[in-house]
């Protein structure tokens, strides 16, 4: 195994991951009535966590990003040979850091955008627990440990959607929960099967990546199938996607952002980190299926978007399409594809997260997301309108913005897939995927044209003018239509900047990921006779 490890500063990951729990404990002893205190604790905790994240970035040895750094390997559940093995390499670093930053910004956003259900105490506690689960999943280097973190995420998200969500929140949350549960149950079976097929020695990624390749092909295919369901549900890929629109639409803004920015990535990350390197031949056998489903997802998601009348639901469907590009990249098993996929994950996290922020703020102001009722946003709140336009452009993969670097190399990579996968098939997929970008432009710009352009809808327009003075119909439409607030600026600016920076100078991320990815692909290649 060419994966040597670096153990300097290896306290940093554990601290960075579990720090939010300290905040949770603190908040337990603060009465729920002190809402400001809770918000403060939440922001401070996540800020400190993010600071640790920054320190991680500083200490990270970018020269050796293909090797696991801050590596820890101590006994955990010795009886079943599962260890507390954690480490960070070029593949997981961006996502790990992203999870911290997103949590922090969402916390800040919460400061004056608390969902209607109130009770910030539990809300913020849940978000902190969520953060632990997300960060943990990206540092885990042991299947069981990964599984634990992977599952920790479930409950908090279930409650976030179910308690602070929209009208059909209970249905949506239960659907989300059971769907994911189903996936991870089969995934667990697959994990154990892999464990025993490799001689029941260890659950550590390194070992399994080595020993997994030796399993004979048919078995690999079966095990991969199990993992496929588990991860595909999370991604979500085409036939397993239906929980996503409901969850996204019903979830509170914070929930949607975290869901889009991080949670969906757990699935794709699982493919890259676990399924493919550990089961090379299975991956090769499944790659065409994944590719086809991915491209179906691209077109299908886009068509779904065209049909939506609800802004948030449209964005949710666009996630299906975007994750389709990510999965297409992965399914090619090429450096290009997987690099693109990883970049796409982060980009999609930033962009779609941003879009959900905007949707939340629009809802906050207009109390509706019906596209037909919204219009002339650019007149009523020019800044928000421009940010929406910016995000839409980023989302449709405009070069110079982050989205492009997830999309184009993925399409590119499909031209000649790795390891003798069927080229004709993939070239067809490539063209269809490229057409998908047109559809993306279609639904996003159409959305933009309908909501931002034109003149404001009278019902809100009149209100916007009156609301300044006597609050006659203030309670009728809630707060007046105001432009971006300072808090929103604070929470959003990092997103916007990141989108531009990564779009203009993608090497920032490729430089970190590429060595790791190359090593990974090489390992996969070694596993395929």
């Amino acid at each position: 195994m060419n994966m040597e490890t670096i153990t300097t500063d290896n306290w940093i990951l554990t601290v960075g991951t579990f720090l939010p729990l300290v905040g949770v404990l603190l908040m337990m002893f603060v009465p729920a009535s002190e809402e400001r205190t809770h918000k403060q604790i939440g922001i401070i905790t996540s800020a400190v966590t993010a600071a640790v994240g920054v320190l991680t970035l500083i200490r990270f040895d970018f020269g050796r990003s293909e090797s696991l750094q801050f590596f820890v390997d101590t006994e955990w559940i010795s009886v079943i040979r599962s260890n507390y093995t954690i480490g960070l390499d070029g593949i997981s670093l961006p996502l790990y850091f992203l999870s911290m930053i997103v949590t922090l910004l969402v916390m800040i956003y919460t400061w004056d955008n608390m969902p209607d259900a109130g009770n910030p105490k539990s809300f913020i506690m849940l978000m902190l627990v969520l953060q632990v689960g997300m960060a943990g999943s990206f540092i885990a280097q042991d299947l069981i440990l990964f599984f634990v973190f992977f599952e920790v995420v479930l409950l908090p998200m279930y409650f976030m959607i179910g308690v602070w969500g929209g009208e059909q929140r209970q249905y949506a949350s239960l659907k989300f929960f059971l769907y994911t549960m189903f996936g991870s149950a089969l995934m667990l079976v697959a994990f154990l099967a892999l464990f025993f097929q490799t001689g029941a020695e260890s659950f550590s990624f390194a070992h399994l990546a080595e020993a997994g390749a030796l399993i004979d092909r048919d078995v690999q295919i079966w095990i991969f199938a199990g993992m496929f369901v588990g991860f595909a549900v999370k991604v979500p890929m085409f036939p397993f996607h239906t929980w996503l629109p409901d969850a996204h639409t019903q979830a509170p803004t914070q929930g949607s952002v975290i869901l889009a920015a991080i949670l969906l990535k757990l699935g794709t990350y699982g493919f890259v980190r676990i399924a493919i390197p550990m089961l090379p031949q299975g991956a090769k056998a499944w790659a065409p299926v994944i590719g086809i489903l991915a491209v179906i997802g691209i077109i299908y998601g886009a068509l779904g978007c065209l049909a939506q009348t609800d802004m948030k639901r449209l964005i949710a469907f666009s996630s299906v399409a975007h994750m389709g590009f990510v999965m297409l990249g992965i399914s090619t098993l090429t450096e290009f594809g997987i690099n693109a996929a990883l970049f796409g994950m982060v980009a999609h996290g930033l962009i779609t997260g941003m879009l959900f922020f905007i949707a939340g703020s629009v809802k906050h102001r207009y109390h509706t997301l019906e596209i037909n009722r919204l219009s002339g946003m650019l007149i009523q709140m020019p800044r928000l309108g421009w940010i929406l336009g910016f995000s839409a452009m980023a989302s449709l993969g405009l070069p110079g913005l982050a989205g492009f670097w997830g999309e184009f190399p993925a399409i590119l990579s499909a031209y000649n897939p790795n390891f003798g996968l069927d080229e004709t098939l993939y070239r067809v997929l490539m063209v269809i995927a490229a057409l998908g970008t047109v559809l993306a432009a279609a639904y996003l710009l159409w959305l933009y044209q309908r909501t931002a352009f034109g003149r404001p809808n009278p019902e809100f327009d009149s209100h916007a003018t009156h609301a300044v003075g006597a609050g006659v119909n203030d309670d009728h439409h809630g707060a007046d239509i105001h432009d971006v607030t300072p808090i929103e600026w604070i929470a959003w600016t990092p997103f916007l900047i990141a989108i531009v920076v990564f779009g203009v100078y993608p090497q920032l991320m490729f430089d970190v990921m590429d060595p790791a990815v190359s090593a990974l692909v090489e390992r996969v290649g070694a596993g395929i006779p």
Partner: protein
Amino acid sequence: MSMLAATLSSGWFLENAWLIPLIPAIGFVLIILFGKRMPQGGSEVGLVSMAASLAIAIGATVQWIQRVNSASAEGEHALGGFFGFARAIVPTATEEGGHSAAFVEPVVRTWTWWQSGGLEFGVGQHIDGLAIMLLLLVTFISLLVQIYSTEYVSGDRRFTHFFAALTLFSAGMLVMVLAENMIQLILGWEIMGLCSFMLIGHWWEETANSKAALKAFFTVRVGDVGLLVGTAVIFFGANDWAVERGSNGFSIRAISAWALSGEASNSVLFWGGVALFIAAIGKSGQFPLHTWLPDAMAGPTPVSSLLHSSTMVVAGVFLVARVYPVFFVGFDILDTAVNLITIIGGITIIAAAALAFVQDDIKKVLAYSTVSQLGYMMLGLGVGAWLPAVFHIFTHAFFKCALFLAAGSVSHSGSHHSFDMKKDMGGLARKMPVTATTWMISTAALCGIPFFSGFFSKDEIIDNASHNGYQFFYWVGLIGAAMTAAYMTRATYLTFFGKARGAAAGEHHDDHADDHADDHGADHGHDAHGHDDHHDAHAGPHESPWRITAPLVILATLAIFSGYLNAPAVGTHYFTDWVEPVGVAVEADALHSAGDEGHALGLAAVTAEEGGYSEGCGFSDPAEGTVCYAPKLSHAVFSWSKAAPSILLVAFGISISAWLSMGVFGDRRNPLKGLTSRSGIARRGHAFLVNKYYLDHLYEGVIVRAVAYPMAKAAYWINQNILDGIVNGVGRSGRSTGEWVYRNLDQRVVDGAVNASGFIASETGHALQPVQSGKVNQYGALLFGAATVGAIVLILVNI
């Protein structure tokens, strides 16, 4: 490196040409951030940044010329004085001399931009003649248009955003122009598309505008699929070859060299070329994706003149010219009688010209004219006339930009913001002398009247078409020229001569053909065409202020003289020397060159370079260890006799059109109804109208109804209902498909299955509940029964 090679001159401006796009980019950011708070609303930033870019561009141009000269000087030194001497006097020899001049290495600089699989891909500059020419052009015209705009859109409520978008556009275009690799090219390409979207939809309060913007972006985006796919195809075709030579499959130099290396598979080149050409079709408004361009006229006039006539729309042509070897080899240009590019180009020329006849909106006339001219450029590239095509980009930019600005000036000061030639114009020549003069000069240039710039570029294309054996397209070109002359004359007459009509006559009416309903909307002080009310204050047409006329004059001047950069008629060929890449084989290690000054290479190869199209780059594979960057093309030798037909046709077009226009539109009685109430006149048949009537009849009945109507109208009908219908239809069908899929497939089938499973589980539970009857005896029966059945089964199995 061959001992014959010697150092080329370079310089700061060449080395740092990458600043040219960077400055406007920064300018854009500044405008967005602080523009609103600035005294001039950010326009000053735009102007300054463009001026700075222009300065650098000029510097770079000068240094490039020096570089070329230094190369040829080396060449003379190496080859003896003959060529240098010959270049001076004998034009024909000059042609050959221009070819066998030394290879001038582009100034290439790259910085790592991204990497994958250990392969690093750069961003940077690739400065050669073509790039230099366009850098200069774009910066220059952008500056002029921005000056013009400070007046034209002053008082617009989105003044700042307007300038921000203009500046960003310039940045994008410049990025594309000096793109070192395909990805960078795509970057600039898409940024332009974005700006086009923003600027067409600048007055987005009206749905029509935002729809037009959407349509433009969307149509172009369809073409971009070709760009993505083509880039991918070419990349994987060229990459291995390029990596061996220390470059990669995105680098434009590598692609060109690979395409000409003879090791490239023809099918890859062909399909890559097709894909890229689809992108060009979309961007350059070629048939059949041209329908977005006339709609794009919904944008402010400066936008039309900058983006949709002179610069952005030539991006497609630029793309083809930039990676010309791919098309040259992929489409077997010069070996086949016809190829995709010529077909599309030819159709575009004729179809667009025909459509221009039946437009009443002056901008629409110019729009179709642009499409038609772009057709010429494509045709030129298609028939192997690389240089004339590029030269036509150059000249066309000036006079077409001037025409648009003039039209804008007319509507701004002459016709109260109307663009309808028939309703609101006429007889403006006297009222607006400057505008009229510049317009007519530019028209002359566009029509290709001798000694105007258009003549030298367009005729070169036509000439080379026949020279390279494309006789059919030679005739297409000629007919196109005649038609151009005709419709431009019609437009000119309608606008500037005859009786003043409507607004031009000082009448005020608010039912303008174009869109600015309720200018004085209460809650948003937006004003559809950015004119303050002081325009309404002084009634009647008048000349525009200097900020509008100055650019007009400058451009008109250039419309005359820009042609002389390459006017064989008078023996100038600077453009050829400076812009045309030399198609000779050079040492392979020229492929990767750092930012340092390059070398004049391949002089040795030159000697083997005589003898027409039999061998040389593009016809025979370069020798081992050498590469070609451009095909070796020869030029038609200009002669007045060859130019005569086109001159005559143009003259005929102008005269007939002028004569008929005067006849029809010069009518003193109800001039506005010239076309509409003719039959009524016929029925009354007043004696003193007879002559007019005959004339009218002659024009309408014979010429127009025989030629224009069947052809033009039919073409227009097809255009609107079929081509445009398809474009819109695609949109609609896509939407409805989406709804169908979502409603039936997603919600019913996929999601239905999920919910059904839950339902089934719960119902099963319901079905099982009766078993739990609460009756002890039944429980006991079940208990014992189960045990017994189990026992029996297992006994049967095991014994």
